[in-house]
């Protein structure tokens, strides 16, 4: 990384040369800020001295809306719209929270289907993350290849629940639809189709020397700093911390599957640089395919709607449930006062917390690096602002 010149410059006659820092607005409308995020950059030439993120441009009062709903079921479409790129994970965390409040246990078939769809969603979300990251760095083509794969995943979603992006599929106590006929074959076909594609991405983008030069040793987030900021997900694992909620705080039937948790090792640079975070996402896609294949093979029979309660009226109390979303730990704190309407729902969004680490790792980088770093944090403003 380039160093910031802090010593005053003097002429030969001893006069100090005045240098001024420039405030540059990487405004709410910018091709690389992944949404309406305003980054106020204080730059000294090309080197960034400070980054101040301004958020709130996409705030839609999600938490307040939930208090006005007539029942807990109506909150689910709102959860979808928080992280619209990985909507299933939002739904799952909320649904788990309410199921815990109600004390109901869903059938095993429901759990398996939920795992399959969550992992499919994880792949779809990482495809966007990696594709748009390539776009930020300047490689236009991998973006389109990744979207081609994503289309097939969205086809799987559409044939099951009818929607491509905002599903309303995970319901409290079960699912809205059972798997359609032909789904298992199509999903297996997708798994075998997708594995070679990862090799294509690695050839074209991941190990391309220019891409490596742009992302290795850039935006290094040390592991202890990541933990101090509360970063989770690929941002934390990219910094070398081996922590995955699916394995370390298991929920649903994750304890039945074998897979490797991808952790950044500083393969081409320092541990915790942008390349590590990017590579963790690529490797997670591979591991998701492994999980999906295991789940498809072991799918039990059952009725997906048998545990859905007629009336959702939890006892007064509160619960915090967290799951591993594509971007990190998504947590829902649900407070119930005994009525059919939620009293208070608080969403702990992973991107909001990951974003807080951005100023720390951008200091001293160049403007082009800020783009690379912001892309590697993989934030979705819908989740940051709720």
């Amino acid at each position, binding site marked *: 990384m380039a160093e910031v010149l802090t010593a005053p410059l003097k002429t030969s006659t001893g006069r100090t040369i005045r240098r001024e820092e420039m405030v540059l607005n990487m405004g709410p409308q910018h091709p690389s800020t992944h949404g309406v995020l305003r980054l106020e950059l204080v730059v000294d030439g090309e080197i960034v001295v400070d980054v101040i993120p301004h958020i709130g441009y996409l705030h839609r009062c999600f938490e307040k809306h939930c208090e006005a*709903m*007539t029942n807990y*079921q*109506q*909150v*689910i*479409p*709102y959860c*979808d*719209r928080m992280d619209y790129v990985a909507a299933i994970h939002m739904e799952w965390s909320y649904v788990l929270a309410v199921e815990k409040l109600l004390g109901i246990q869903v059938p095993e078939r429901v759990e398996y289907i939920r795992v399959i769809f969550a992992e499919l969603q994880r792949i779809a979300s990482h495809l966007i993350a990696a594709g748009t990251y390539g776009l930020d760095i300047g490689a236009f*083509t991998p973006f389109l*290849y990744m979207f*081609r794969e994503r*289309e097939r995943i969205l*086809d799987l979603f*559409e*044939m*099951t*629940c*009818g*929607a491509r992006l*905002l599903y*309303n599929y995970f319901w409290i106590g079960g699912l*809205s*639809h059972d798997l*359609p006929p032909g789904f298992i074959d199509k999903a297996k076909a997708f798994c075998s189709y997708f594995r070679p594609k990862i090799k*294509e991405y690695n*050839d*074209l*983008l991941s*190990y*391309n*020397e*220019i891409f490596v030069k742009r992302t290795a040793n850039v935006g290094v987030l040390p592991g202890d700093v990541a933990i101090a900021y509360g970063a989770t997900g690929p941002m934390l694992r990219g910094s070398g911390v081996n922590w995955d909620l699916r394995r370390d705080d298991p929920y649903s039937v994750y304890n039945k599957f074998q897979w490797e948790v991808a952790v950044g090792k500083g393969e081409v640079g320092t541990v915790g640089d942008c390349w590590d975070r990017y590579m963790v996402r690529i490797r997670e896609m591979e591991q998701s395919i492994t999980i999906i294949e295991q789940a498809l093979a072991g799918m039990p029979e059952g009725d997906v709607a048998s545990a859905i309660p007629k009336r959702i009226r939890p006892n007064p109390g509160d619960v915090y449930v967290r799951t591993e979303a594509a971007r990190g730990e998504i947590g829902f704190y649900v407070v119930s006062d005994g009525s059919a309407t939620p009293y208070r729902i608080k969403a702990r969004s992973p991107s909001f917390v990951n974003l807080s680490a951005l100023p720390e790792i951008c200091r001293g980088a160049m403007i082009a690096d800020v783009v690379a770093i912001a892309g590697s944090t993989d934030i979705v403003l819908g989740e940051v602002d709720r």
Partner: protein
Amino acid sequence: MKEYFGNIFRSVWTVLIGMKVTASHLFTPAVTIQYPDVRLKLPERARNRLYVNMDDCIGCFQCDMACPVDCISIETVKSLPTDDLGTTSTGQKKKLWVTKFDIDIAKCCYCGLCVYPCPTECIKMTDVYEFSEYDRKNLIYNYATLTPAEVADVKAKAAEMEKEAAAKKAAAAAAAAQAKAAAPAPPAAPKDQPPASPPAQPHP
């Protein structure tokens, strides 16, 4: 020094590999189709524009209450006992005139929560997705099948029935009051009735 040459070699090599990947894609067929000349067939469960079959609607307000964004507004009017509104396809006899059934499809979030509670399965999500309009007002779909004249007529009849019922009730109440006033006083309680037994004492 070795790193310098290694860098150059790796750069050239990975550039060539990348070029091979993109060049090979020049010869694979495109995955896009030319919409609107070619349209993909949507799966059976696709959730797009709402449709309401008014013949089956019994005016139960379940979809109105289920909608998270309040895009459905319904008004019903009681029918006279002599009216025949017909039966739904599920065999239920309809009792309410649905005078207003508006869905603001611009507000609709396409979650499908209105479809499940419907007892007659008359509200459905179709696979129509090309329904843009030039004027936003045209996106409020009015599904009610009664003409304004019929609506006024039905409302008038219902109002009348209500008045009659209220009048009858008032008359009945008045008659009951009158009967109460005109009727002879109830027989006096017999003097030699034993006094009421004292309340039970708890056992010592």
